[in-house]
């Protein structure tokens, strides 16, 4: 039986498919409940109740929303580029999904534990901009296009400092493999020694996912809804799901890079690996929502200033410091 799954093409295919399902189904349910959690958390912060009608405590609200979306008509604007218009949301959504292929939820629990996992994640997250820019262009609408341009510039800008953060983590690990990165944190999670980088990374993650306070690409007040102003029904739902899946992905990345992945604090209860991972992701997600409820939106020039004039020099400086410290104290891995 084992040889069937591991040695034949068909078996491998079935195995991979099953693994993907085992990961994606909980993920999608997580995405659905993240929307619910967002509304509940915002409501709590704003002293409201939030959804509480559909099902007990409003728990069925996400499914009601999904049903509503499916029932509606997908409208394609006149003059839009049909193919690209429909491709953009699918692209956004599928990119948010395929990134999960390399995320290790527990020791050895990754669909593909590849050598260059972190580069893969970085590559996928840098592709996210295409969904938005294509959507903005294909919609044939000024607002959508403005939103797309904003987001392209924003995501490219914040990727730069994100790259430096990744490099400083890699310096401490000596490997691009995600499992190795987590295991390297068995003594101390990287969020402590690399605290400034942790902050830079998390804020850049906010910008990469176009979440507030960096949600200028949507900017309801000036450009209505930015790049997805023309989308409706399932196409819209895909963007929506993609955004939330990206939030979870970024939280997962933060967890792996800085919060010790599936490792418990002080090494307690190592058998609860996946649970620790989920807990940490939930914490990051809560911070995402918390930030949204707390901070007003950045102005565009402030956004660019923060990215290029604050984060870039800061991450560069900290990278140099990290490298110097590793070199001076002889902490370099694999040295």
């Amino acid at each position, binding site marked *: 039986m084992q040889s069937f799954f591991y040695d034949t093409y068909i078996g491998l295919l079935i195995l991979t498919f099953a693994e993907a399902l085992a990961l994606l189904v909980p993920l999608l349910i997580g995405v659905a409940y993240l929307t619910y959690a967002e509304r509940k958390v915002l409501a709590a912060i704003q002293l409201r109740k939030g959804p509480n009608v559909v099902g007990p405590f409003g728990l069925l609200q996400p499914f009601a929303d999904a049903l509503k979306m499916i029932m509606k008509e997908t409208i394609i604007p006149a003059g839009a580029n049909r193919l690209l218009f429909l491709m953009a949301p699918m692209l956004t959504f599928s990119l948010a999904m395929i990134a999960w292929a390399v995320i290790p939820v527990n020791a050895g629990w990754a669909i593909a534990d590849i050598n*260059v996992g972190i*580069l893969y994640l*970085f*590559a996928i997250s840098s592709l996210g901009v295409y969904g938005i*820019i294509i959507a903005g*262009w294909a919609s044939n609408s000024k607002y959508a*296009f403005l939103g*797309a*341009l904003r987001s392209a510039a924003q995501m490219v800008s914040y990727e730069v400092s994100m790259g430096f953060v990744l490099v400083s983590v890699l310096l401490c690990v000596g490997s691009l493999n995600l499992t190795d990165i987590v295991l390297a944190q068995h003594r101390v999670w990287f969020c402590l020694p690399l605290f400034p980088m942790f902050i830079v990374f998390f804020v850049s993650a906010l910008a990469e996912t176009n979440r507030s306070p960096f949600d200028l690409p949507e900017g309801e007040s000036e450009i209505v809804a930015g790049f997805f102003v023309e989308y409706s029904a399932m196409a819209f739902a895909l963007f929506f799901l993609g955004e939330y899946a990206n939030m979870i992905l970024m939280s997962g990345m933060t967890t792996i890079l800085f919060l010790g992945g599936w490792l418990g604090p002080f090494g307690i209860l190592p058998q609860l690996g996946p649970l620790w991972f989920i807990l940490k992701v939930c914490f990051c997600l809560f911070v995402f929502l918390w930030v949204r409820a707390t901070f007003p939106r950045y102005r565009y*020039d402030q956004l660019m200033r923060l990215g290029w004039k604050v984060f870039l020099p800061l991450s560069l400086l900290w990278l140099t410091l990290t490298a110097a410290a590793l070199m001076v104290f002889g902490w370099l891995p694999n040295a």
Partner: protein
Amino acid sequence: MIANIAFYVCSIILLASAALVVSSRNPVHSVLFLILSFFNAAVLFLIAGAEFLALILVIVYVGAVAVLFLFVVMMLDIDFAELRSGFQRYLPVGATVGAVLFVELVFVLGGWEFAPQAPVLRFSPAPANVSNTAALGRLLYTDYIFLFQAAGILLLVAMIGAIVLTLRDRKTSRHQSIRAQTDRTVAETLELVTVTVGAGVKEIGILRPKPVDPEPVEEVHHGN
């Protein structure tokens, strides 16, 4: 076997999308096909076992360079008809030059013969037991450190050049002064008035922000 199939499929898509880059009518489509061909090139790298190069290709070219391409192409208002108007006229010349070059290439490749020492002189044979990321890093930062640094300076020059030629301080643009913003006090910005119940604009008068002396627009020069 699967690797072979993947190789041929990706190569075919790569070639086809490369052809479409130059032949498609809409420049945005051209850029998108360009991205597709980058992708397939990355997959070819993967098949060859160079996973680091594959992902760097995606990150750098697809994730950054092509985004800027797309950005520019979308912003440009290109007249496609005009762009193609010369096509017919220059086709014979272009085709002739292309044909000559092609014949030359065939001629050259026909006589392909490695110098006998070539295999020995190969600079960097693939090392065993080292992941190709580490191998590349080792080569780049030890053997080729001089070239690496020279390339870095080259990019610095390009950056200085772009800034020198394009950066202009517009006298009209107003810069944000965070210091001034945080230094403001309540007394400077707020005026509290007691409004009697039922009083309208007529009675109170329209309240406007306190007149601020317009800041003298400083002439900021870069360098001169």
